């Protein structure tokens, strides 16, 4: 594993007496793909919510490039370069694909009140983001730009959420079940994009139940159960353990 870009140490989160994350520690290497696996209720999504600031840990520390993220609001964490997708697919369905992508683009001057009122019209940033995405292999979205996001197929919507993460210019992408419920062709396309994004220097962490998907793209695997990290290491170390495969991936 390369240098750790994102670390968590002794993280704990309790909801009404139920321990969702229990002294979990992890280290995510830069420019790697890490899969988080585990049964439902293992605390995987809660861990994502802790990293992205949607929840605050009761205890423990999360660091991104050696700076703590504790107490940082979600929008600020996103601006620092950590983007995420959600299990219950989130998009602005009433907006076009183009507007969803333009919404994701960071630091737009005309998103500020005075600039919106008095700034010159033009969507220079929007054009830049579209050109960038085309270069990054998201050209298949181009014919769909004027479609409402809500009219896309489920797989296309998941693809669009991935493109939104990229439009943000994020360094780390946290993807919550990126291929669950998606047609196999689209799933394969999404996994291929994840590999390409790693080649382009991004770091990806994804939650997944499908062992073939994990085998295909993951470098590292973190196994969670009842809020604890019960195993972590390279794919080759973790996925050979029979009890893990039987318990969590079949």
């Amino acid at each position: 594993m390369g240098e750790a870009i994102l670390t968590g140490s002794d993280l704990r989160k309790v909801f009404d007496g139920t321990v969702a994350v229990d002294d979990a520690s992890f280290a995510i290497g830069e420019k790697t793909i890490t899969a988080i696996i585990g049964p439902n209720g293992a605390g995987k999504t809660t861990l994502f919510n802790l990293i992205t600031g949607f929840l605050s840990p009761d205890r423990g520390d999360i660091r991104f490039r050696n700076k703590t993220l504790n107490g940082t609001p979600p929008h600020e964490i996103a601006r620092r370069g950590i983007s995420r997708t959600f299990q219950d697919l989130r998009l602005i369905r009433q907006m076009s694909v183009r507007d969803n992508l333009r919404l994701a683009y960071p630091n737009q001057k005309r998103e500020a009140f005075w600039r919106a009122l008095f700034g010159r019209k033009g969507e220079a940033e929007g054009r830049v983001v579209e050109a960038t995405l085309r270069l990054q292999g998201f050209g298949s979205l181009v014919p769909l730009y004027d479609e409402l996001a809500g009219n896309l197929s489920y797989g296309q919507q998941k693809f669009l959420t991935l493109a939104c993460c990229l439009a943000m210019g994020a360094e780390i992408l946290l993807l919550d079940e990126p291929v669950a419920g998606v047609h196999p062709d689209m799933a394969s396309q999404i996994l291929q994009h994840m590999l390409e994004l790693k080649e382009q220097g991004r770091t990806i962490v994804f939650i997944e139940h499908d062992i073939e998907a994990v085998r295909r793209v993951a470098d590292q695997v973190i196994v969670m159960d009842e809020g604890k990290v019960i195993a972590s290491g390279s794919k080759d170390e973790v996925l050979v353990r029979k009890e893990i495969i039987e318990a969590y991936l079949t």
Partner: protein
Amino acid sequence: MDYLLHILILINIYIILVISLDLIAGYTGLLSIAHAAFYGIGAYATALLSLHFQTNFLVNMALGMAGAALLGTIIAFPSLRIHDDYFVIATFGFQMIVYSVFNNWVDFTRGPLGIPGIPTASLFGFAIDSHWKFLILSALFACLAYGVVHKLVNSPYGRVLKAIREDEIFARSLGKNVNSYKIQVFAIGGALASVAGNLYAHYVTFIDPTSFTILESILVISMVIIGGAGSLRGPVIGAVVLVILPEALRFVGLPSSVAANLRQIFYGSLLVLMMLYRPQGLIGEFNLQGR
């Protein structure tokens, strides 16, 4: 003729109110029933400043806007923690507080007696002292308010507002400072609504708290809902319809006591029917009922 001009002036004043509320409720999804409070602040700032300090129309407007923007900032704070019905109830609380101040702080506002003798507006030494002149002035400000909100909602700023309305969590995950936008929108919407209050005070030259009750807030939100929240033309149509229709009832020939009650029944029925059969309003794109 003056009666017709009076109706048109009222329409202009209500257009400013509905446009400013639409920015808050229609475009950002923050259903507020405190809009009459902003309207009242504009009117009371105008009345008190012009009577005590002899300030002119534009100074009154600027200070009224500043006061309403400050109140808007305060009202926005609950929206950072509570949502939907709970937030509506919180705005109801603010509306009641501001109304109570107008009604009970007698030394300052003269309470239920109201404030008479507010001077008519004058702009750069030009007295706005006839219905025609006031119609032009109010139309100018209605167009300005429309232009400001149109510019905002059709810019990347407006795109963020719509994203907050549709999915606040998604907007946060994209790095948008949702709290800041909510506060800004309430400050801007409040400041614009205070302009309507300023015009109203200079126009009728007498104000009292009964013009700024919860019923007034409900009337404005009704205009937005009936016209169509989340569009600009919709609420304008809503304002035109709800100002003109009750006036039209006057000409049916019913006694005024019956007509007044009939008007309320008509409003209520219209709202119920709209909610049942066209919750997005006449030409709106956003269903406030679904929040």
